[in-house]
């Protein structure tokens, strides 16, 4: 296939789609599927068949549309009209939507999602521009929306060096969390002297509550593949790996299909788009270890070794998979490549702040009205995310903190709600951008308890290689456990703080280095809560039961307990 064939294919598909007067887009990504999306789609198809409207109404199963807590979501696209969204669609409602809206143009009021919802209005869809609009299992759908043209353009009009320069110019930074400038990394791999190089997409998204990468892989797999192919061309690699978390079977299946479809059409594999560039992509499925999201552990896992990090340097760009230079980026980073090549670096650099360009996808979760997947320009304030897009805190409760970056991140209290969300500002507050999990907490959340939750996660997920992370996380968890059950002393708090600093500074990889972050940031902003737990043995949020006493006070406590038990037995 060459560029002309690609355009023909796009044209043919557009014509085919144009034949339908009405298209019903039914979300088929994991959140909607788990709330009954498959039955809704079946009901839509059945209803159309019953009404004998196959020629004018089409049902398309698409990727994520965003408002995941309101799933299953269905979009009605009628030619010449604005898209209409329906929430919480049931099979009965689906039949009604077909009968009333699709065929007679009368929207079904009770399930309607208001179209002027700030949830949609405040978002900027760059990476997710196709998500929710195309069928992720059909290559034609992607091509009809201009897919693979960026790759064709790069292969024909740009040298590998040009591509790297363009990425550098765009100001794109790694979306995995640390924010390393992507163009710089690409250039390092491009300049590394070796015949064999690799490109790796990190889709081992493990933060609790985060599902940005999953959604991108499920909703628009070809965009990730195209981004990887452009990267392969830019750095001189002919082999790519996409590492998908074992818990993401739908994403893996759709990627597998996408790779096969692209290979069949000559968009991947040998001689991509009839050029001299060859690029093969293989999928590697993880086996459930959080640490495999760390790049060196991920590469060990791809090579079939035990998923444990190794000290850097050497960095993957110098010596990665099987000792060859390896470009490793997050799936979302690869999702940004196509728009940069398509619209140019200047267009991209106009979005965002001075140091953080472009958009960021967040998985908005916790105590907000609208939870779901959002894509916002960098530099948006937390207040806009939580109160405009998220719709505020339900039940009239108070906002307490927002947790970003998962177990490696921290909590941002209410006084910093007007902080701009970018890499530097979040870091200054003791949190991190992270991969994009954003959990909102109200006044019913107890901060030591939140810290304990994340510490337990890190303790379970520590690989066991270095001592500070392996044992330090256990000790920190035990102290937090004592704080939340009422048996902690002031010495415990001091030990906890010491351990936090030590583990952060001496651990081998990012997991250990960032494991104390949730504790440190909550100690920084909510120290009085910790002190209340220890000194007054009270939990203001009412989460912790505080039934224990410090060991030294057991002498007084035990007779009291025995008396209480005796009274109970009488």
């Amino acid at each position: 296939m060459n560029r002309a064939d690609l355009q023909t294919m796009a044209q043919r598909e557009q014509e085919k789609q144009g034949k339908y007067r009405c298209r019903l887009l039914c979300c088929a990504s994991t959140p909607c599927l788990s709330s009954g999306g498959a039955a809704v789609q079946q009901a839509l198809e059945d209803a159309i068949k019953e009404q004998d409207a196959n020629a004018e109404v089409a049902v398309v199963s698409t990727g994520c549309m965003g408002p995941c807590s309101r799933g299953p979501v269905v979009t009605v696209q009628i030619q010449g009209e604005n898209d209409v969204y329906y929430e919480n669609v049931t099979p009965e409602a689906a039949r009604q939507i077909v009968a009333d809206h699709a065929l007679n143009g009368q929207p079904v009021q009770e399930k309607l999602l208001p179209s002027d919802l700030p949830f949609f209005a405040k978002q900027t869809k760059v990476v997710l521009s196709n998500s929710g609009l195309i069928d992720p299992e059909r290559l034609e759908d992607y091509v009809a929306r201009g897919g693979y043209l960026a790759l064709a353009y790069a292969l024909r009009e740009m040298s590998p060096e040009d591509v790297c320069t363009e990425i550098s110019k765009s100001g794109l930074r790694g979306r995995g969390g640390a924010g390393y400038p992507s163009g710089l990394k690409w250039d390092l791999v491009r300049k590394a002297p070796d015949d064999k190089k690799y490109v790796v997409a990190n889709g081992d998204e493990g933060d609790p509550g985060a599902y940005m990468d999953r959604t991108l892989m499920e909703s628009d797999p070809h965009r990730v593949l195209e981004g990887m192919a452009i990267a392969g061309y830019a750095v001189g690699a002919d082999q790519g790996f996409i590492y998908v978390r074992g818990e993401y079977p739908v994403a893996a299946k759709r990627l597998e299909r996408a790779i096969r479809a692209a290979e069949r059409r000559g968009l991947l594999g040998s001689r991509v788009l009839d050029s001299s560039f060859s690029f093969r992509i293989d999928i590697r499925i993880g086996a459930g270890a959080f640490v495999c999201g760390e790049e060196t552990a991920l590469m060990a896992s791809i090579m079939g070794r035990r998923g444990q990090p190794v000290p850097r340097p050497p960095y993957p760009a110098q010596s990665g998979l099987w000792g060859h230079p390896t470009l490793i980026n997050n799936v979302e980073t690869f999702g940004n490549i196509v728009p940069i090549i398509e619209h140019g670096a200047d267009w991209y650099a106009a979005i965002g702040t001075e140091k953080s360009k472009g958009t960021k996808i967040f998985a908005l979760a916790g105590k907000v009205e609208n939870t779901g997947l959002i894509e916002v320009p960098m530099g948006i304030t937390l207040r806009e995310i939580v109160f405009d897009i998220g719709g505020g805190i339900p039940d009239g409760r108070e906002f307490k903190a927002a947790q970003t970056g998962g177990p490696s991140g921290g909590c941002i209290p209410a006084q910093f709600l007007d902080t701009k969300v970018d890499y530097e500002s979040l870091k200054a507050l003791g949190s991190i951008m992270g991969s994009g999990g954003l959990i909102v907490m109200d006044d019913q959340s107890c901060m030591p308890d939140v810290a304990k939750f994340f510490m337990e996660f890190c303790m379970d997920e520590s690989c066991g290689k270095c001592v500070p992370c392996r044992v330090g996380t256990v000790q920190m968890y035990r102290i937090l456990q004592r704080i939340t059950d009422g048996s902690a002393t002031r010495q415990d708090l001091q030990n906890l703080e010491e351990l936090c600093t030590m583990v952060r500074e001496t651990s081998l990889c990012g997991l250990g280095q960032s494991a104390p972050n949730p504790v440190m940031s909550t100690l920084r902003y909510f120290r009085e809560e910790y002190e209340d737990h220890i000194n007054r043995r009270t939990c203001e949020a009412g989460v912790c039961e505080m039934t224990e006493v410090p060991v030294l006070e057991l002498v007084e406590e035990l007779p009291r307990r025995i008396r209480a038990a005796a009274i109970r037995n009488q």
Partner: protein
Amino acid sequence: MAVITVTINDELVSGREGQSLLELVREQGIDLPTLCHLDGLEERGGCRLCMVEMAPGNRLAAACVTPAQEGMVIYTHSERLVKYRRMILELLFAERNHVCAVCVMNGRCELQYEAYTIGMDHVRYDYLTPDLPMDASHDRFVIDHNRCILCTRCVRVCDSVEGAHTWDVMGRGVNCRVITDLNQPWGTSQSCTSCGKCVQVCPTGALHAKGSTVAEMVKRHDFLQWILDGRENHQWTMRNGEPMESGR
């Protein structure tokens, strides 16, 4: 080989390019504690005892896995480093059941030595007291998981020197354990050659010879250099010219 200059504890020293910081520091006669490192084995960088402070910025780096570079300024025994080393040792003692008084390596144990040297007199953290088994199914050797610090010297020596790869690690975090074959009793292992290298390199009493009781086990690390020198130079004598005595 290019010569480089590095400042260690405010003193200028010269080293060779490609050398690790640990090697360079030790060449200066500075005692930097290590547990996972062993001359002759590939580095692991897991015990974090050999961390040094690098100026500017006072960033910490593990000396065993950091190549020495021209112009580096490092400190090996700052107050912070000594404090962290002590904490790491305390964590190790708290992790498993290290009861020196009844250990076969009492008096010769590297973990005990490091703790003694740094002046660690008590442990501030909870003893985790895990319920760990011993495996005495092998004819000549015993593995006592209670004493293991997961330095993986046994894993590395078995893989890279003996070439058997009998040992490996299973589990995650604090539940990690070294295992023989696919977690089968050592005595039934098909791959084990009973060479005893793992026992000789083990820093603690985790691996020891059968029949030794408290403080009786003597280990010789120097055999490793002897084997490696022998393989490279076809010269089967010890570094000081004496042949290796057999039976040790």
